[in-house]
């Protein structure tokens, strides 16, 4: 699922097993390109910094509607 050799980007797959969106409680998908966890339901993307997902609503990026 992820390349754990790269510590700067990517995420431990064990984290993906347990994490959901704190705003919508909906599922998250890992966006490898932007290194973010995306909640479609909430329209938010949570950044991952050095392997640490920042699951704080006020630090998430709002997704553009399309």
């Amino acid at each position, binding site marked *: 699922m992820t390349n754990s050799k790269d510590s700067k980007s990517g995420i*431990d797959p*064990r*984290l993906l*097993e*347990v*994490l*959901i*969106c*704190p*705003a919508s*409680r909906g599922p998250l998908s890992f966006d490898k390109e932007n290194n973010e966890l995306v909640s479609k339901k909430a329209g938010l993307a949570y950044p991952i*910094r*050095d*392997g*640490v*997902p*920042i*699951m*704080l*609503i*006020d*630090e998430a990026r709002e997704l553009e509607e399309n």
Partner: protein
Amino acid sequence: MAYSPDQNPPLVFNRELLKKHRNRAAQNFDQFSFLKQRAAQSMVDRLEDISTSFNRVLDLGCHSGTLEKEIAKSQTIKNRVKDTFHCDISYKFTAQIVGMAIAVDEERLPFKSSSFDAVFSCLSLHWVNDLPGTLIQIKNILKPNGLFIGQLLGGRTLHELRTCFIRAETEIRGGASMRVSPFADVQDLSNLLQRAGFSNPVADTETINVRYSHPLKLLQDLRGMGETSALFINKENRPPNLTRTILFRALEIYGEQYATEDGKYPATFEIITASGWTTSPNRFLNKE
């Protein structure tokens, strides 16, 4: 029945400010971590009496990873814990963790139901606005037969400092504002655990007296621990600024009222430890 965090409980604490205090404390935490260490050791003592193994453990409010370091020192426990997920509202603390870490707001836990075998929280939940709500969320993310142990600062914490601030401010301004956080007490906590649906809830309390050479050292320590007041303040309830005059009068009263014969200034910290188990399979398991 499922808990919705949008029911707007009254805001006592400013979580944004707490995050700032924690981020600041993260720079030098190990110099100020004596209280956290003490609590973590007491948590480990309790775990030694429980023979259960835990595949997935959530460390809620991990600071610099103090609890895991204490667990690693115990031969009887370290092999019983497989994966630890470290959480803190401060990214700067999570960045110091070797292993899995997540920046998390305890008021909105980002975890699936039935994810963990145990949730341990060492001196963090006293900053949560809606403790009943957080406890319900914790119960929800625990698997059946899961264990929660939480340690919070209790109501006797800093009672000396609180008294001095109130007296100084009343003398100088004729009225007092809240300068020290309100804390829960033991009875509250075991009731809350029961209401959240934990079985066998137990809560007890431990008082720690720290002796300072000067009350300013206490204030320095609180800052270093990231425990300075993070009360929620808006335009309507903003208290008058804490002036130097009031601060120095408060410190003076501290000396008059509490200093011991050998010139030390005692400060009380109360650590409440509460624990409970989840038993029956979670009814909301498949609703996600």
